């Protein structure tokens, strides 16, 4: 029963149809929540007593930092599923997630740097979290370049999938290494602003925005996988039937 459902989901035409149905149901709530959350965060929430209005950048920074790692785990899990059960659709999901994840990682880095300038007095600090976020961006780039360098799709899928799985074992190691490394560092430690417990009217927009960007990611992922599936199956009969004409036949 369960397996039946799983196999049906993994069939490209079925998934294509299902994703088309679900994507708008993720996208519209995401956009509505985004607008409400942004209004709550940028207008309603009071300025921070220490950081003034500068703290508001967390409404972009925290959701993107959270998504940068969440999307990587989606990528690694789907790659693992693809490698173990040889499901091509799982690789299509992983491949579609990577550019979204890399974008959120870049956004988290840039927003962190913009926050760092007024708060720390510098755009960049070799802080453990910044450093491991940067390494995460490199790993996304490595995954995407490895995919792009193969002509054979199935090889590209499996090689990059293996890399994603190796990366997921390595990411915690890299993260904790950076943390321990900086605790070995003897240089002056930057005076980090203590994390005061966040007040309710600052918190709800943040939670709402985290939920909104997760849904937004889900919608983007579904749209991208739909395109990816069409591209991969462009010779299949169901695509021919779906699109009417037969561009592949000349």
């Amino acid at each position, binding site marked *: 029963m369960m397996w039946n459902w799983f196999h049906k989901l993994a069939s490209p035409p079925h998934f294509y149809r299902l994703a088309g149905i679900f994507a708008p149901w993720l996208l519209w709530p995401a956009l509505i929540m985004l607008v409400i959350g942004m209004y709550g965060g940028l207008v309603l929430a009071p300025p921070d007593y220490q950081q003034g209005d500068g703290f508001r950048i967390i409404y972009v920074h925290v959701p993107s930092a959270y998504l940068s790692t969440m999307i990587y785990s989606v990528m690694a899990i789907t790659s693992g599923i693809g490698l173990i059960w040889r499901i091509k659709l799982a690789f299509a999901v992983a491949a579609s997630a990577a550019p979204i994840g890399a974008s959120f990682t870049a956004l988290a880095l840039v927003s962190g740097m913009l926050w760092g300038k007024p708060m720390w007095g510098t755009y960049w600090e070799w802080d453990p979290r910044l450093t491991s976020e940067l*390494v995460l961006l*490199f*790993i996304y*780039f*490595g995954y995407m*370049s*490895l995919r792009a*360098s*193969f002509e054979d799709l199935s*090889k590209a899928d*499996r*090689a990059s999938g*293996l*890399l994603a*799985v*190796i*990366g997921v*074992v*390595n990411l915690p*190691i*890299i993260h904790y*290494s*950076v943390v*321990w*490394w900086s605790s*070995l560092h003897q240089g002056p430690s930057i005076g980090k602003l203590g994390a005061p417990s966040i007040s309710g009217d600052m918190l709800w927009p943040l939670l709402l925005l985290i939920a909104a960007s997760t849904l937004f990611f889900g919608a983007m992922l579904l749209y991208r996988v739909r395109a990816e599936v069409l591209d991969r199956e462009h010779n299949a009969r169901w695509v021919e039937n779906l699109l009417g004409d037969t561009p592949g036949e000349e």
Partner: protein
Amino acid sequence: MNPGRFFFAIVLRELQVAFKRWGDLASPLMFFVIVSSLFPLALSPKHEVLRNLGPAVLWIAALLATLLSLNALFRTDIEDGTMEQLVLSPYPLTLAIFAKTVAHWLLNGLPLVVLAPALAVTYYLPAEGVRALCLTLLIGTPTLSLLGAVGAALTAGVRQSGGLLALLVLPLMLPVLMFGARATDLAGSGEQIAGPVYLLAALLLLALSLLPFATAAAVRISLD
């Protein structure tokens, strides 16, 4: 032939093949020496500058030299069919891959450990620093070989793989670099280095237990 003899036969073969082409063998080591000697010329020959930067420079040079030596690790064997024979042999592919990685370390990692003290002296590292550099390289370079082998196996089927290999492997090598250079630095200023050295050893054990399997899987992907 029992698995142990199979393992040693492959290590021996790798060494023999490598010594026939000793130019390939020497160039990463020459690279190590040349890169290390560029820094004093570009920075300044002041003793205290070099003593502060020495651990980092020597470790980075060792990392890049390892990277340089990885490109041909599996490529020739895949192209001339040797790898297919290893896959068909009754022994696990992981064992053969592990033997090749061990040979790679003997040919590339170990010479770095031997060369490092001479270079460390030109950076005016104190005796404790030199000792720590050798120790960390001895524990760290096998991890670099194991990590590099995965990258080499993943990119074996790709034509222009040099830059790609660096992009894949360097982020994964970061922890080794950080602890190795940090321990050398700490030892130079007379501090305890047990912490980073234990962490390096832990990384090596983890790499030894997992990466040969991943490398064998990557070789299989590159083969078909």
